[in-house]
């Protein structure tokens, strides 16, 4: 272990940085798109009758009951058969975003459901339209309840992004794999990679716990 980072040249560092950048990029895309879609679907489910709710629910269920890696392989195979030449970033983003949406919609739905119906009655009695009650009262109130769970899903997405390497996307874990096979120093490189994920995830999870504590007051 004495020659800890000697085998790593400048090229390698650049390589690793690309991996980091790719991980961050695809995570951010999936979190943003997944949250927006999840918000819409969660809201629709919260306000719908039980039939629409059940229908949407079963579709989302499928996305949550099939391993992400299978979804990635399936989708990219399917795209390939259709004859399109999509680059792994696009394919990965689509699958990861939909996967995120499935979990985010539960978070948002729970948040909206938790706002008491009396808030809507009080707002409407003041003359607000339906959408005004949503925008100025019900949604802001639910956000406070939603935040911790939202953060939890977001952190999972960052970790799940590692799987997109399966379809050829050079995110961090995959680039580290290549380095390992070249330098034959799995432990050091893996530890470095682990530290990276930890450094992103841990402070955010601490922040989430802090917010949760503040809200409980």
């Amino acid at each position, binding site marked *: 272990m004495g020659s800890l980072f000697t085998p790593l040249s400048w090229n390698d560092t650049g390589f690793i940085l690309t991996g980091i950048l790719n991980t961050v990029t695809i995570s951010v895309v999936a979190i943003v798109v997944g949250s927006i879609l999840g918000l819409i679907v969660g809201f629709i489910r919260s306000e719908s009758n039980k039939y629409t709710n059940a229908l949407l629910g079963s579709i989302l269920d499928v996305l949550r009951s099939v391993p992400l890696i299978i979804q990635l392989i399936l989708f990219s*195979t399917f795209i390939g058969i259709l004859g399109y030449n999509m680059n792994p970033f696009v394919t990965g983003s689509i699958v990861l975003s939909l996967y995120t949406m499935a979990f985010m919609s539960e978070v948002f739905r729970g948040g909206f459901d938790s706002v008491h119906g009396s808030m809507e009655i009080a707002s409407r009695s003041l003359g607000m339209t339906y959408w005004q009650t949503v925008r100025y009262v019900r949604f802001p109130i639910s956000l406070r309840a939603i935040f911790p769970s939202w953060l939890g899903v977001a952190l999972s997405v960052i970790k799940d992004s590692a799987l997109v390497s399966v379809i050829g996307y050079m995110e961090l874990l995959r680039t580290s794999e290549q380095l390992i096979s070249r330098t034959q120093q*799995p432990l050091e490189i893996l530890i470095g990679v682990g530290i990276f994920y930890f450094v992103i995830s841990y402070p955010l999870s601490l922040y989430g716990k802090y917010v949760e504590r503040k809200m409980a007051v």
Partner: protein
Amino acid sequence: MNYEFHWNIVFQKMPELLQGAFVTLHVSVLSMLLGIVLAVLLAIAKMNNIKPFSSIATVWVEIARNTPALFQIYMAYFGLGAFGIHLSPYVAVLVALVFVNAGYLVETFRGGFQSIPTTQYHASKSLGMSSYQVYRYIILPQMFRRIYHPMTNQFVWSILMSSLGILVGMSELSGETQRLQSLSFRTLEFFIVAAFMYYVITKLVLFSAAMISKKLFKGEI
């Protein structure tokens, strides 16, 4: 779309796929059982501040929760190689899953335990119960109701995460699917069937869990 679906090849290989599914199930079950045992020990260490185990527990939990499962698997499969420990794909995945399960379950157990108001303890003691009786009849049963749902979810998570075995050559469902499709080139059909099988397994697990909970928890929490 110019694709002819050839399902018969998949159905011919069904026995091997089912074998893979079986491996998925038993690695998940094992990872839960071992994870629960470890989580109980770690939780006790953490809540009672037993040095140095409580610090080990904290570090374990935070690493497990803040790094990807795939990372854990690679550490077990490749990383340990640096120490001369070479695990088979099955054991590597098992070790990784146990590590992560234990990490998450510690928090579940801690949360469940701490969510029971101390007034329950006071009330039972004032009825003359011994500490053992308080835990056995009042605290633990209530705790079990609260952790049942999170534990079910953790089990489902284990089943889905075991699919990462495909990347280290393990012969669970995904790994078998990969092997069989590479022999026949019917990638799409095989993976569609695999996806369907995971869906069915997950649904069955959740359904059974719901049925069991109805039997076990007749009253409200």
